[in-house]
């Protein structure tokens, strides 16, 4: 019956989605390597109320048409690959990437990408992430290793009690021309997509690939203050949309009251 009722309702739905995303961001405020998301909205179609050049009832010509918008729709959620804060942990298998780059993980032949650098060693001596997915290219920590060091360029050395190197090698990271296009698959991992482009792999510190900091972890890039502000703005926007519904409703009430018995 009234466009504005439905239009404002789409606005309320959009703000609910915004709150869902804020809630997920806030829930992951302590997730290692987490990248926050944002919701993208676009306006819905416009209904032509009067065409430009149309004659009005008084015989005037409308210079510009009148098109009434029908509200808003959510179109996508976007990852924001801003750098997270670094936290010193003192754990030799905690590695943070400074600037661009992703660790590569092997999940039964599929390669996934992630920024979370909290690694473990599985029973075969392979370096794996918290999910047990091995890091690519594989690193096997020899038995008898006491200290494991990684320099900023990604060169790693496993040494025994006397400091004699047992094995050595170099890490590889992947970068994407458009990391925002990566598909989040949960578990702190991303998969490549058409939008992200093919991964470009290389050694840390070379060709625009970031460097490694051992004993550090990259924390979540969720900023609690930003999220709180978004929450407040979203709640108020929700409220104002509900006011538009109330206004439409009371105007309908006024129309109904025109007819007196």
């Amino acid at each position: 019956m009234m466009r504005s009722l439905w239009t404002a309702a789409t606005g309320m739905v959009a703000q609910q989605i915004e709150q869902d995303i804020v809630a997920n961001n806030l829930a992951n405020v302590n997730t290692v390597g987490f990248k926050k998301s944002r919701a993208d909205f676009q306006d819905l179609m416009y209904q032509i109320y009067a065409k430009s050049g149309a004659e009005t009832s008084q015989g005037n010509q409308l210079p510009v048409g009148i098109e009434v918008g029908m509200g808003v729709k959510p179109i996508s959620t976007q990852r924001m690959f801003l750098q997270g804060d670094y936290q010193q942990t003192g754990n030799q298998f905690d590695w943070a990437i400074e600037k661009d780059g992703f660790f590569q993980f092997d999940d039964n032949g599929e390669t996934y990408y992630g920024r979370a650098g909290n690694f473990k060693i599985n029973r075969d001596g392979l370096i794996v992430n918290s999910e047990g997915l091995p890091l690519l290219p594989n690193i096997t920590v020899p038995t008898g290793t006491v200290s494991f060091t990684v320099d900023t360029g990604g060169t790693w050395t496993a040494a025994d009690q006397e400091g004699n190197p047992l094995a050595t090698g170099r890490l590889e990271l992947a970068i994407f021309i458009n990391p925002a296009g990566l598909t989040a698959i949960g578990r702190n991992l991303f998969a490549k997509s058409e939008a992200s482009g093919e991964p470009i792999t290389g050694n840390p510190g070379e060709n625009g690939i970031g460097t490694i900091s051992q004993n550090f972890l990259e924390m979540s890039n969720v900023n609690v203050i930003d999220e709180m502000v978004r929450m407040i703005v979203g709640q108020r926007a929700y409220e104002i949309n509900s006011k538009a519904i109330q206004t439409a409703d009371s105007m309908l009430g006024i129309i109904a009251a025109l007819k007196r018995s």
Partner: protein
Amino acid sequence: MLYDVTDVGRAGARKLLELDFVANNVANSSTTGFKAEHLYYAMKGKKIDQGVMPGLGYTISAIDYSQGTLQTTGNILDLAIEGDGFFTIQTNQGTVYTRDGSFMLNKNKELVTGQGEHVLGDAGRIVIDGTSVKINEEGMIYVDENPVGKIKVTAFENEQLLTRSADGRYTDRAGASPKKAANYKVNSGYLEMSNVNAVREMTDMINLQRTFETYQKIILTLQDMDKISTTRIGKLV
């Protein structure tokens, strides 16, 4: 009588239309690059001494093209224009213009919108293939330090003649006269937020509801007067 119930009714209908605009503005308070739009009324230019009452004049909608605030996103391909102009997009229906600069790459490494339509540069489509991208304030795109194109920013002599459609698109159907934008800055890693002003929308809402109530009172009064004239004037004493 100079005005009758239908005139007041028509004025009331305009208030309902005005509310539709307010509702669309508030619904889009989080829409990237959205521009608020309001309805204005103009009185018809005839005077009482010409024997005609000023009737209901033009109803004009005007888009408020003022700058929206920029929000940082950290994605290089999120672009925001500060100042005049629109991004130029190639669609199947022809060239459209938008202020929503959340762009991405398709599988051919071309710069596209979220709907997959090509973002035009000064020399056509923009291909970004390399390891690093930088976009400067003029909209020049550098891939691995080599320039590959410049974002085409189009401004208009008369922006009010643009026709808007869904997804934040504007089309030039009525002679808005496109021209090269001069006063602008392209910000990479930012998006322009909606320019909807909550205070204005709220006061508009209060205002139009109260006006609507007044119309109701007028209609009720006119009804009463009609009743009086039919029941009393013709009555035999």
